[in-house]
């Protein structure tokens, strides 16, 4: 386990973009989950310090109520990251379970699962998400993650199914089948370990999609606004008309950069993983 982690880091260190992505993801994780334990929350309005440009006391300036922006960025990551992670976990679990089931069992079950997937895949997801969010008004992040996951599993399921179909013909799976080891053993012990990297990459990409959709519906103001996050910062910046106010540059650019940099880190890490785990592409 430690050896393979070291081997992974060695391969990653040869890919500067992937390494930067990995460090970026770690840094954002640290900022969102650990930094709030050491930095006190500063959310009392201070009308004498509205829309300040960066100073030593406020490295990213202040917002329309004179609150520190860096503090909001630090506190605003946890919800976004948690929802993105949970949504990706739910959709990946759903897709892997039913994709693997469809491919291994085959026959009528495969036709039914694939039919449902095809239908779900063609329904325009963002439009449906907007309608569903407006009707359900999800306030907790668990329910928001479930909605996001329900909308993004179909494409992943198709890919998992295709992957399992090709694995099914491998010798070690044939061997397990001739030894009559049973379906759960074949799926969980033989196939899934060989799809770990594949699932990890798609998990990361699912997370980027969930964060995009989540930031989008928060920005549109479709979700009840509670707590602090980067999407809510953007929503207020837009609804307060701050975007047309020259002095509010730092208030808007900070959440934009936070979301964009986190997305970039995830995508760079995913493409580096693809490069490392796909031996055909591996050049080192």
């Amino acid at each position, binding site marked *: 386990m430690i050896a393979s982690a070291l081997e992974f880091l060695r391969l990653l260190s040869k890919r500067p973009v992937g390494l930067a992505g990995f460090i970026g993801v770690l840094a954002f994780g640290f900022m969102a989950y650990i930094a709030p334990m050491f930095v006190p929350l500063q959310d009392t309005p201070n009308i004498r310090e509205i829309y300040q440009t960066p100073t030593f006391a406020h490295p990213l300036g202040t917002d329309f109520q004179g609150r520190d922006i860096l503090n909001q960025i630090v506190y605003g990551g946890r919800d976004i990251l948690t929802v993105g992670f949970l949504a990706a976990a739910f959709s990946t679990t759903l897709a892997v379970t039913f994709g693997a089931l469809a491919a291994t069992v085959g026959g009528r079950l495969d036709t039914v699962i694939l039919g449902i997937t095809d239908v779900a895949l*063609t329904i325009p997801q963002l439009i449906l998400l907007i309608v569903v969010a407006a009707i359900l008004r999800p306030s907790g992040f668990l329910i928001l993650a479930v909605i996001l996951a329900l909308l993004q599993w179909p494409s992943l399921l198709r890919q998992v199914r295709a992957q399992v179909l090709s694995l099914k013909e491998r010798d070690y799976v044939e061997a397990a089948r001739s030894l009559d080891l049973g379906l759960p053993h074949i799926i969980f012990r033989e196939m899934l370990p060989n799809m770990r990297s594949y699932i990890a990459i798609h998990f990361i990409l699912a997370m980027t999609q969930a964060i995009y959709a989540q930031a989008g519906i928060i920005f549109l103001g479709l979700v009840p606004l509670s707590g602090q996050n980067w999407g809510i910062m953007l929503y207020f910046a837009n609804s307060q008309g701050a975007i047309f106010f020259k002095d509010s540059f730092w208030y808007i650019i900070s959440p934009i950069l936070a979301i964009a940099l986190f997305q970039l880190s995830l995508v760079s890490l995913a*493409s580096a993983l693809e490069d490392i785990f796909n031996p055909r592409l591996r050049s080192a």
Partner: protein
Amino acid sequence: MTVTAAQARVRSATNPRRYFGAAWRHPVGRAVLKAVLTVWAATTITFFLIRLMPGSPVDIKIDELINTSNGALTYEEARVIASSLFAINLDAPLHEQYLSFIGNVARGDLGFSFLSSSTSVTSIILGVLPWTLFAVGSGLLLSFVVGVGLGLVAAYRRNSAFDHVVSSIASVATSVPNFLTALLIVLIFGVQLGILPIAAMRGSYTPGIQVGFNLTFILDVLFHASLPIGVFFLTNLGHWILSMRSATLAALDEDYVTAARARGLTDGRITTAYVGRNAVLPLVTQFAIAAGYVVGGAVIIEQIFVYQGVGLRLFNAVNQRDYPVMQGIVLITTAAVVTANLLADLLYTRLDPRIGRAGGSGG
């Protein structure tokens, strides 16, 4: 001749299952059936979401009617008005309401808007659709043409400075959410540098301008559409560059390219007739599918630029709880995406003769 046709019709009516089966076995028939099924599923999901949610929009509408009439309306009267607005009979059992709703949709009747009960949902959608088709469509088309060109050149000059620059920009452009790109453009070019007159560019055209086929109006429409088009162009460009680049790299490894080189064909001829044509093939299908999503517009980008398209109309309908309009837009968008997918399937079989032949020998 007419007798046999009539007989066939009678037989199909008596045994629909057999004809369904026959259609399912035919590839085109199956694709059409799947398309119809998808549109039905999307419509049904929206219908039940609206009817079954706690505090359903119908109840909310009834409350709203009673409140706005200051007690002049009784609950029963409000209920009648609300049900006529929804074009469903609230006293009927749910499955009957559903059947009549589906029947109306099948006849092309999408009901009327909540906010003005004389405006049909169809006319609302037809009013905003041209703007979205123009802005999102041109953005998509431009990004496809430029992206395919850049991707082809990048693959040809693999690992050159040009390739590195183009690929890196493309990767960044695809990773950053498109509405953030839109906000960045407003923020940097509109507000900080003051190059773009953002406030004047909002909307689909300048209010009060004479609408018609004249140069002033056309230029005004282009002026207003340029920002949404620009954002769609920039945010879709990366995807086409990366796809075309990898498709071209794969095509370059093919034996027929080596053979063409050995035959001494010019580079230009190999690029266009051999590599480009094969590499662009899967992208054409992707483009057809993406074209289907154009109808739904781009809610967030249209909202940022206040561009009066389908997306902004949906957003307003959501905020005003105008459920018939929401329902109509979901239906029309799904229908467009499904049709585009269907066309993409058929197009691919036509464009790539290998698929037709394989299917012929297989079946």
